[in-house]
């Protein structure tokens, strides 16, 4: 079902959603002493939206899986411990103008969160969120979504997908929830849109991303399965500082740590915080032994998890090609380069 919406119509729609009390999350310009960037943020008015510009610097992860979530509060009285939920119900939210890589990531992480255990903390916010994506009209040298099964205009994970056209957007309602949203706010959607009107920049962006990286994911997966001890791993981690900025910026990395924080002698909070396999602490045992003793083995873990372990279990890869790991890396690590080397090695072996 394809509609059409004008620039002013979209602004009016966003303002109406905000006025109804629903949280709206959209890319907005943020001025920092480090410079200006686009970031997904909770916005207070449609004027704040910055739907075009550089690749959005954060992912949507913090909105579905916040960096720190209180799980419950505890109180101890002698031998008895009483627990109470720490947070209320998740608020209804609408994400507008999200990139394809960020939307696809939500579906990819869904599978982990609903695998051997149904994770309420994740699904509570996930189910309360309507996702409206926007096909990308820009890409940089670190984008590689097309190499991992996505693309600038890939609709995966979208309830509604927007595609830029002259003076507005085509709006494709893709899920029941998307259709319901379009009918609820029907007054802002003009008429049936024609897919041929889409901005040619979308196609150009796809072509640009395709030239950044071309790999055979199946061959890489099979190479990884057979080459855990390959000498390649001795070089990959050299420049890595093990800081974990890559994992924190990544839309699909989802590991967490659980901590108890006392707020007094008898009471406190149990929280769930983001964690990363890139630090030594992640795997260190109580004895002091660490099975991942250096950065090379931690980089191997990150690559294996994304391109071998997750695919073995769920079919596709734990990566959407957003390129943030490359952009944030202080050491100049480059996943595109690593994947190229693996692809070449896989080809040579077959």
């Amino acid at each position, binding site marked *: 079902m394809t509609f059409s919406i004008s620039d002013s119509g979209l602004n009016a729609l966003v303002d109406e959603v905000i006025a109804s009390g629903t949280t709206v999350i959209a890319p907005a310009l943020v001025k920092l*002493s480090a410079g200006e960037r686009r970031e997904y943020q909770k916005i207070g008015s449609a004027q704040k939206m910055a739907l075009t510009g550089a690749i959005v610097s954060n992912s949507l992860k913090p909105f579905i899986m916040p960096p720190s979530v209180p799980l419950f509060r505890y109180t101890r009285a002698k031998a008895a411990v009483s627990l109470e939920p720490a947070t209320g119900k998740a608020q209804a939210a609408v994400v507008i103008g999200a990139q394809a890589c960020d939307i696809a990531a939500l579906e990819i992480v869904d599978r982990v969160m609903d695998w051997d255990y149904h994770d309420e903390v994740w699904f509570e916010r996930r189910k309360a969120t309507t996702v409206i994506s926007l096909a990308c009209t820009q890409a940089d040298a670190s984008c590689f979504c097309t190499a991992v099964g996505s693309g600038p205009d890939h609709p995966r994970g979208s309830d509604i997908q927007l595609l830029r056209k002259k003076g507005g957007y085509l709006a494709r309602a893709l899920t029941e929830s998307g259709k319901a949203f379009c009918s609820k706010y029907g007054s802002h959607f003009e008429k049936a849109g024609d897919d041929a009107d889409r901005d040619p920049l979308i196609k150009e962006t796809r072509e640009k991303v395709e030239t950044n990286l071309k790999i055979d994911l199946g061959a890489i997966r099979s190479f990884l399965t057979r080459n855990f001890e390959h000498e390649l791993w001795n070089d990959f981690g050299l420049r890595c500082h093990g800081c974990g900025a890559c994992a924190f910026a990544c839309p699909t990395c989802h590991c967490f740590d659980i*901590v108890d924080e006392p707020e007094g002698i008898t009471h406190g909070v149990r929280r769930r915080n983001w964690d990363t396999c890139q630090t030594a602490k992640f795997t260190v045992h109580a004895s002091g032994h660490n099975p991942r003793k250096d950065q090379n083995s931690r980089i191997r873990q990150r690559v294996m998890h994304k391109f071998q372990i997750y695919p073995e279990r769920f079919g596709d890869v734990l990566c959407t090609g957003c390129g943030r790991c490359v952009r*944030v890396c202080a050491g100049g690590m480059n996943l595109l380069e690593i994947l190229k080397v693996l692809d070449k090695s896989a080809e040579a072996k077959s």
Partner: protein
Amino acid sequence: MRELKNLAKRLLEEGTVKVVIGYEEGPVGVRPVFVTRPADAEKLVFNSRCVQNLAAYLSRRRGHIARLGKSAIVVKGCDARAVAGLIRESQLKREDVVVIGMRCGGVALRPSDEGPLTPETVADRCSGCESREPKLADHLLGELPPAPPKATRMFELMAQIERMPVAERFRFWAEQFERCMRCNACREVCPMCFCERCIQDKSQPQWIETSPHARGNLSWHFTHAMHLAGRCSSCDECQRACPAGLPLGLLNRKMAEIVRNRFEYQVSDDSTVPSPIGAFKQQDPQEFIK
């Protein structure tokens, strides 16, 4: 540049060192490289995009690099201060590293920033730099380029923060720290953060909460700044590495200023001068002890 490549090649061929830690052109900007074969010395570059402070790779925490064998390291004057810091604090023996010093005309904010340096693109630490010729060097290479343009950003922001009433200043930092996710990039890239077990990772007792909330973030960033007082080499790598864009260099600059005023000490690349934290002087200010 030829001089650098030839020297690195010779050091590796002679077996003086097993690895040369330097800079190469990466896929998106200049980045660190670890040259172990003489032929690969051709990869080495030195230019205004050599932003990174490579001294972090000499830290004992980097076991995978230490395993390669004795290293030579390419440093700018500012980086030499960090190498000297590691020697001063017994993390590294002077004879265990060959220091290749580069005469420096300043570097850009980011390793991907092309073009000549301007007040907008030059790194904050290059303003008024007095160590464009590292003294710690075993080999000092290149001609001294003209002084870099002056960036005023950080100093203006510092002055602006100093003028704020305390409550407003607290609000400024509280807002900044709100963005922190506690990835610890600021710690991991810091050449002077070499503790095998950081106070933040100690959980019995938990001195610093690891959660990215106001309390945890404030205790972490203030502790980090305090631990770096009189030790920080002002490379601003913490600030560059921060995915949330926190102006962490400001805190370290302010601490350096306090140390300078209180202890007449400035971090230099002379490893024989003890730092205030590592030395006791009867004249040290102590009026706060009552």
